């Protein structure tokens, strides 16, 4: 029964993710159609990949008839941040969590699913992650389907408003911790400022956002861990 409860809480927190995903993947569907994909191909890509930046890049790869090596390298750069997220989650779940649960949970690691999962207090239950995935994956796939078949079912005003849902949710994940800890507050401000500076310098603006995320994470979290080691058992 505890598992069902975890699933339910996860599903509830997955609803804003599903709304936000719907808006983003609706846009993806429209672009996929323009790139010449049929509805099946577009939904297939969304349901198997579950990653926004990677899929937008994928459309370019299809258009340019890229080689396997190019496809793999692009995804590796854009999505390498999932490696760090998966690493962080490996320390949040019970060490006894079965191999099977680990295989299934891994499929759902996106920026947002990761966000609401690390925000969960105590040991992370796979069923909580499944609950989030149960909302997020249909949201992502259905949005793609509607985008590719209709193109203009949703008024642009609504798409625009829904597009901020994911960011709002991610803020709700990090801000409460900033209230508790001045170190985290400082890190969040520092991260946003450096990210903004990197995006503003024309020479550096061409760095893929995936690469930027992983470089800044390594540098900022790496230095912070050295200067402010966390002594107590923060995961319990």
């Amino acid at each position, binding site marked *: 029964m505890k598992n069902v409860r975890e699933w339910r809480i996860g599903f509830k927190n997955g609803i804003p993710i599903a709304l936000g995903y719907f808006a983003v993947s609706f846009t993806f569907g429209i672009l996929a159609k323009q790139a010449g994909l049929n509805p099946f191909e577009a939904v297939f890509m969304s349901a198997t990949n579950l990653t926004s930046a990677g899929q937008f890049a994928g459309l370019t790869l299809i258009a340019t008839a890229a080689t396997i090596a190019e496809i793999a390298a692009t995804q590796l750069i854009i999505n390498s941040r999932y490696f760090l997220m998966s690493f962080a989650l490996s*320390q949040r779940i019970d*060490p006894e969590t079965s191999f099977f649960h680990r295989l299934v949970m891994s499929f759902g*690691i996106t920026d947002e699913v990761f966000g609401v999962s690390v925000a969960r207090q105590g040991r992370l239950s796979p069923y909580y992650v499944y609950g989030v995935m149960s909302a997020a994956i249909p949201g992502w796939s259905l949005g793609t389907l509607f985008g590719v078949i209709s193109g203009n079912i949703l008024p642009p005003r609504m798409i*625009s408003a829904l597009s*901020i849902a994911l960011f*709002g949710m991610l*803020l709700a994940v990090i801000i409460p911790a900033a209230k508790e800890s001045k170190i985290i507050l400082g*890190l969040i401000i520092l991260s946003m400022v450096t990210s903004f500076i990197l995006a503003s310098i024309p020479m550096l603006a061409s760095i893929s956002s995936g690469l*930027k995320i992983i470089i800044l*994470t390594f540098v900022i979290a790496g230095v912070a861990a050295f200067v402010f080691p966390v002594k107590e058992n923060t995961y319990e």
Partner: protein
Amino acid sequence: MSNAIFVSVVMAAVTYLIRVLPLTLIRKEIKNVYIRSFLYYVPYVTLAVMIFPAILDATASSWSALVGFIVAIIFAYRGASLVSVALLACLSVFCVELFLY
């Protein structure tokens, strides 16, 4: 198999490997204080870098996005739930854009 399906399969395989390797290979609790601290800070840094300045390009206007950003911070700070913060941010963007256009 169409080219689009082929590209999707390769992309999905690479992306899944990135996601699955740490979670399946690292099966023990890491005791090292430095690595533990690093992993503790990772979510805050990664998510903060992802949010800003990307949030400003998310909506139809940077102004509506900026208002949504501030509204989300205020409600998140006051302890509102994930769902409420997300929906209030959407609502504020919607209202600002009604006013702008």
